[in-house]
């Protein structure tokens, strides 16, 4: 099957800045894929290259087998992009904007039923005739998702879609996006909320400074990180010096220690006993995507 996205040795320079350094990646049709990385890693640059908002310095990108430069019409038909910024046209209401957006892609009145459906599914029915200017931030975000979907693209890219969005809206939105994925849409997500990527995405790419530093299934990435975290409550007492090398964080009198393997628990307890410190509470926690991310980004 033709991959939904194929990125082949893509370099992008902005003047002297080498923003993307030979990125190679393939995303299969129907995948729910996460693109993670700190600010400035090159995620948005990669998305803008796919959407034709930027042009690569070298290399090739294809959407559903269509080259984004040579076959830009077909490639853009296949792609919907939800931008990170809350951008909108202040002259029009939600329904008008969606109809215009579909119209740019050659879709006419026959597409109105789909427009109505996305308006309803994203909880925008009450706001369909409201000017974009008058929508709250969360509503604008929904409208942006609706706009990206207006022409029914098989591939949907969401660039930080839940930034600044309340929990309730986030859940409604993900239910709808999951439904689209079940119906066969390929979803590519960039997010700072790593738990979202862990819950939703079957595969993850991690980027740092314009390079892919990890690309694997979410499960493999988590398995690759054998470590666990140990949370300790010591009744306000200080952690012994010998355990400071393992310290990952400290909050509200609780210490979070990073363990390479479970057997290190014994060592920790021994050191606490040696220092005459009684453990008030203790919890062993599985590593999550955030641990993998911090580890890989820190190492790369």
């Amino acid at each position, binding site marked *: 099957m033709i991959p939904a996205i194929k990125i082949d040795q893509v370099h992008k320079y*902005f003047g002297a800045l080498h923003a993307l350094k030979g990125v190679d990646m393939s995303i299969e049709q129907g995948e729910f894929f996460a693109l993670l990385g700190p600010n400035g890693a090159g995620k948005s640059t990669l998305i*803008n290259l796919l*959407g*034709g*908002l*930027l*042009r690569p310095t070298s290399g090739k990108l294809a959407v559903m087998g269509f080259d984004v430069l040579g076959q*830009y*019409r*077909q490639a*853009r*038909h296949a*792609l919907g*992009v939800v*931008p990170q*910024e809350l*951008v*909108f*046209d*202040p*002259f*029009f209401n939600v329904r*008008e*904007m969606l109809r*215009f*957006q579909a*119209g*740019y*892609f*050659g*879709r*006419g*009145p026959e597409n109105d039923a789909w427009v109505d459906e996305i308006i309803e599914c994203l909880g925008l029915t009450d706001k369909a005739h409201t000017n974009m200017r008058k929508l709250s931030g969360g509503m604008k975000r929904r409208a942006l998702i609706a*706009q990206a979907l207006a022409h029914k693209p098989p591939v949907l890219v969401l660039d930080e879609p839940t930034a600044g969005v309340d929990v309730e809206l986030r859940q409604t939105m993900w239910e709808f996006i999951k439904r689209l994925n079940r119906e066969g849409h390929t979803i590519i997500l960039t997010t700072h909320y790593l738990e979202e990527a862990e819950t939703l995405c079957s595969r993850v790419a991690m980027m740092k400074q314009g390079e892919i530093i990890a690309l694997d299934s979410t499960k493999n990435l988590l398995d690759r990180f054998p470590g666990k975290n140990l949370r300790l409550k010591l009744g306000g007492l200080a952690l012994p010096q010998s355990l400071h090398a393992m310290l990952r964080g400290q909050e509200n009198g609780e210490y979070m220690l990073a363990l390479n393997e479970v057997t290190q628990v014994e060592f920790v307890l021994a050191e606490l006993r040696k220092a005459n410190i009684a453990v008030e509470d203790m919890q062993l926690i599985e590593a999550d995507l955030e641990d993998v991310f911090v580890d890989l980004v820190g190492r790369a």
Partner: protein
Amino acid sequence: MNLIGSRFRGSWTLFKKEILRFWRVVFQTVAAPVMTALLYLLIFSQVLGSRVQVHGVDYTAFLIPGLIMMSMLQNAFANTSSSLIQSKVMGNIIFVLLTPLSYLELFLAFLAASIIRGLVVGIGIYLVAIIFIDLPMVHPWIILAFAVLGCALLGAFGIVAGIWAEKFDQMSAFQNFVIMPLSFLSGVFYSIHSLPPFWQAVSHFNPFFYMIDGFRYGFFGVGDISPFVSLAVVGGSFFGLSLLTLSMLKSGYRLRG
């Protein structure tokens, strides 16, 4: 709409959106320029109307075609330039750039909408002016040709300015230091034959002069130069500017990095 296949629906949609965009603020985009032109007409006709004749035509009547053309040109320019600069500054330009519209389709849609806005303003001024002044129309086709070509030229100029400018301040400089002087010094309020020889020669380098003189010729059958020379200059300028605009859109200059 059924007559227009889905291949053309994209540019048709952008055209419709651009029309609706200026129509939503019709007081600002149509009524205001009509009012301004009528104020010019009122003041100049009161001061000079009964005493001055140009090319054997009463000054008030002479003034009307120039005011109509100047307003059409300024508004055609404003339509494309303001649409592009606003979308760029607000970021919503991406909704157009992410679509499969080609650079030619973008050009045609923006241009056609600017011509419509220019014509709507021009017709508005004409309809109000003829209530008060008897205005002949000797060559209607020449009037139409200059109106459409003039609006197209300034519409294309607006696209260039809208792409080039990155701030409202730059756009304002373009409007105040290029468009306004060119339109005011083009013979809207006078015949260039009333100027000293040096300024007459300078006027021949101003494309606005040819648009206004040709347009006025359509009404009265007289002008400072042959309407066919004017048509050739305006047509040539439009062709050259269109090539520049298309090359900017094709290369993605200041639109696609």
